[in-house]
């Protein structure tokens, strides 16, 4: 299952730098230990990079939200608030760990631990650069979502073990949200698998590496079905990682803190770490499946190493998550589930039909490109309009009595 790195000597030096560094470390060990040490170094690097990214993300989120809301965000701890995540970490570590007496102590401890373990395991298959993937297996996409679905169990364990009926109710609601959005999440990337005919993420990324007419990359997001699939994937990813506007499970005004009510100190921090890791991993998947992974957007920009392109795309998706958090109000649980089952699932199934049409009409010839495009767009846009009309019936445009026009 694990592969030794294939150093391509014709790639620029910056591109090969991570692998060369890793070689430099394992060079000193005897031959039988090479594979193990390579894997261990990959694991350590992934954990430290994404741990640091988590810290920076909490700060970036507060600063971005602050600037959108006409205020600075944290700027007292260190220059521009740079030390704020470390201050938060120290605070969380030194808080008292309160566990209710009648709570199930084993499950109370196990819930955040298993959530974090499942979230970290999903980082293994994402290709971060040209040869930078920790686990290059044939069924990488399926692995990602299979391990990701183990997070739902931890949510239930958290709500159950608190011995608090409100936590249990909130855990049930959170589970309803997670299960409802898992369906559009998985169906939305099936078109990608249909087009690429493989589940392996490295192969999907390398299939998106051409450029037509010299400027347009072959990323799947630039196709009609790919754009819809990307939009569906991002919305479902927002809901799967309990992010605004779907953050009903963890919002403070909803049943105190939902299934996290009885957690304090470091376990609470672990839950949030798992949420940010989930967000990052899903963004990484979106980048690999739809945005071309580590490919540069233009053939003239390939001198910038592939992992930097991946980082740029990942950070822009995460900034998009924060922008969405700053803009939209929270959805209620019934609006949430209605949105998933009555809007997203039919649209994703229709997207499957559209992709099937796109694939089967590939051999019509170049002249028929415009008709193909038009038919595909009609297949997507008409159901969207009809569904929106049907679901929006009964809700008028709001008129404000006292607001100035």
């Amino acid at each position, binding site marked *: 299952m694990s592969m030794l790195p294939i150093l391509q000597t014709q790639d620029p030096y910056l591109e090969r730098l991570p692998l060369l560094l890793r070689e430099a470390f394992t060079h000193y060990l005897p031959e039988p230990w090479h594979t193990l040490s390579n894997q261990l170094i990959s694991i350590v690097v992934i954990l430290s990079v994404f741990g640091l990214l988590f810290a920076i993300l909490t700060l970036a989120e507060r600063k971005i939200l602050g600037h959108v809301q006409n205020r600075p965000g944290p700027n007292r701890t260190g220059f521009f608030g740079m030390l704020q995540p470390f201050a938060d970490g120290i605070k969380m570590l030194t808080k008292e760990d309160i566990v209710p007496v009648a709570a199930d102590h084993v*499950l109370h401890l196990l819930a955040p631990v298993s959530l974090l373990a499942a979230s970290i395991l999903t980082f293994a298959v994402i290709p971060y650069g040209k040869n930078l993937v920790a686990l290059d*297996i*044939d*069924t990488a996409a*399926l*692995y990602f*979502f*299979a*391990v990701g*679905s*183990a997070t*739902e*169990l931890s949510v*239930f*364990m958290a709500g*159950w073990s608190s011995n608090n009926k409100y936590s*249990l109710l909130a855990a049930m609601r959170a*589970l309803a949200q997670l*299960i409802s959005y*898992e369906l559009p999440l998985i169906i939305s990337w099936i078109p990608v698998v249909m087009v690429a*005919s*493989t*589940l*392996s993420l490295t192969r999907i990324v390398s299939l998106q590496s051409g450029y037509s007419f010299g400027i347009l990359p072959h990323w799947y997001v630039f196709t009609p079905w790919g754009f819809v699939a990307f939009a569906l994937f991002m919305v479902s990813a927002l809901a799967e990682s309990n992010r605004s506007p779907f953050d009903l499970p963890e919002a403070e005004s909803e049943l105190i803190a939902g299934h996290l009510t009885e957690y304090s100190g470091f376990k609470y921090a672990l839950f949030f770490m798992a949420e940010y890791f989930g967000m990052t991993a899903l963004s990484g998947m979106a980048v690999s499946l739809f945005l071309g992974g580590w490919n540069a957007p233009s053939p003239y920009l390939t001198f910038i190493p592939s992992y930097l392109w991946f980082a740029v795309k990942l950070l822009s998706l995460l900034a998009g998550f924060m922008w969405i958090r700053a803009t939209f109000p929270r959805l209620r649980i019934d609006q949430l589930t209605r949105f998933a089952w009555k809007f997203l699932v039919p649209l994703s199934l229709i997207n499957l039909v559209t992709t099937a049409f796109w694939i089967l009409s590939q051999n019509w010839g170049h002249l028929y490109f415009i008709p193909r495009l038009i038919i595909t767009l009609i297949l997507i846009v008409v159901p969207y309009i009809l569904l929106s009309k049907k679901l929006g019936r009964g809700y008028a445009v709001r008129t404000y009595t006292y607001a100035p026009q």
Partner: protein
Amino acid sequence: MNATLLITIGVTLISSAVALSLRNLIHSVLLLVITWIGICAFYLIFNAEFIAFTQLLVYVGAISMVALFAVLLTRVAPSTNQRNKQSVTRFIYALITGLSLFSLMAFAVLHTDSPKEKVEALPATVYSIGKALTEEYAPALMITGSLLTLAILGSVLLAAHSPQSKENS
């Protein structure tokens, strides 16, 4: 028969045995989840990646939810289980049934003709599995799909149909 296989077998069997003997139903279901993860590891040892991760997705991701919801929604009060003579009789009956089932399965397994030399497994890539499922075994797939759809529709109907909700459906 290497260490990984032995550890996987041990974890699977021990967790299922403990799951059957615990009083607390929620703990039993969670130990059953460990059993299913053990089965997934078992598939991975024999290089069946697709079915291993499908097992994880379906069992740990969905069926565990079904089991937990079922336990929660039909919870009985924690009973004070005192050991009476009747439960000892039941234990003996259970032992007899289990042993007879086990001996039947052991007989079946030990008396199958297995090839004497190692056979190279066919490459089970996702592509070949997909091709087989959509070309050779497509009817089986469609029948299973319609069966599951009918089951879901039936359960939705059963859950939705209640006398009070007739006026506000």
